[in-house]
């Protein structure tokens, strides 16, 4: 087969999204978002070490609607990347490659990541 007749890899604009492909690209997207979100952790720690005034600025930002939006997105992204990361570790060990297992572990990731996010926010609401 000549090079220009070879089948193309999935064409994103017309290829039907599947759980497997959506979770796959979401893992990468959340990873990049979480890396950026590390700036928030570093800012929070440096502000705590700098003193009450700096700390109040961070807490004020995190308590704003934008802060809550970022925290909510960050917490779900983290729980998703965590759960799907565990799924990847099982794959690395050679387990779970059958198609039905891939879909079951995929749905398990969706359910577990939502449950863990809800749990974290429930703890936050009770503690606040």
């Amino acid at each position: 087969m000549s090079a220009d007749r070879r089948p193309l890899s999935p064409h994103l604009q017309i290829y039907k999204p599947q759980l497997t492909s959506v979770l796959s690209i979401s893992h990468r997207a959340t990873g990049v978002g979480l890396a950026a979100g590390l700036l928030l952790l570093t800012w929070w720690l440096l502000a705590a070490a700098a003193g009450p005034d700096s700390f109040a600025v961070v807490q004020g930002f995190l308590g704003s609607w934008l802060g809550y939006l970022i925290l909510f997105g960050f917490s779900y992204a983290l729980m998703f990347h965590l759960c799907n990361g565990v799924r990847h570790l099982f794959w690395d060990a050679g387990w779970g490659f059958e198609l039905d297992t891939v879909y079951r572990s995929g749905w398990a990731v969706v359910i577990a990541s939502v449950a863990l996010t809800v749990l974290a926010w429930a703890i936050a609401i009770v503690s606040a």
Partner: protein
Amino acid sequence: MAGKTMQSMRNPLARVRGLGSAKEGVHHWWAQRLTAIALVPLTIWFVMSIAGLAGVDHAGAVAWIGSAPVAVLLVLLIAAVYWHAQLGVQVVIEDYVHNEAVKLTALIVLKFAAIALGVASIFAVLRLAFGG
């Protein structure tokens, strides 16, 4: 047999010793998995702990960060998460940035930023732990 040996003059051992064109073999892959495994318990601990600190004042945050087990776990978390994050973002840059100069610059900025921010974060934790 003769044809097969002619495909490569290198035996498997020589190939492995060279560790491929990048001379690092599976090091990147392994480090990403090692930090991932470490981050499973560390992340669950951190998220649930930080959720319990919702609305905490400065004194409360300082007391928490500076207490011995928390400070140790935070240093481990910071080291593992920055290491893991820069390995992951490196792959994304290598996949999507095709201009060599831009790619090299982005990778250098990424590596320097990860080390600087990681060290700054650890410094903040230690400063509180040692009561600076």
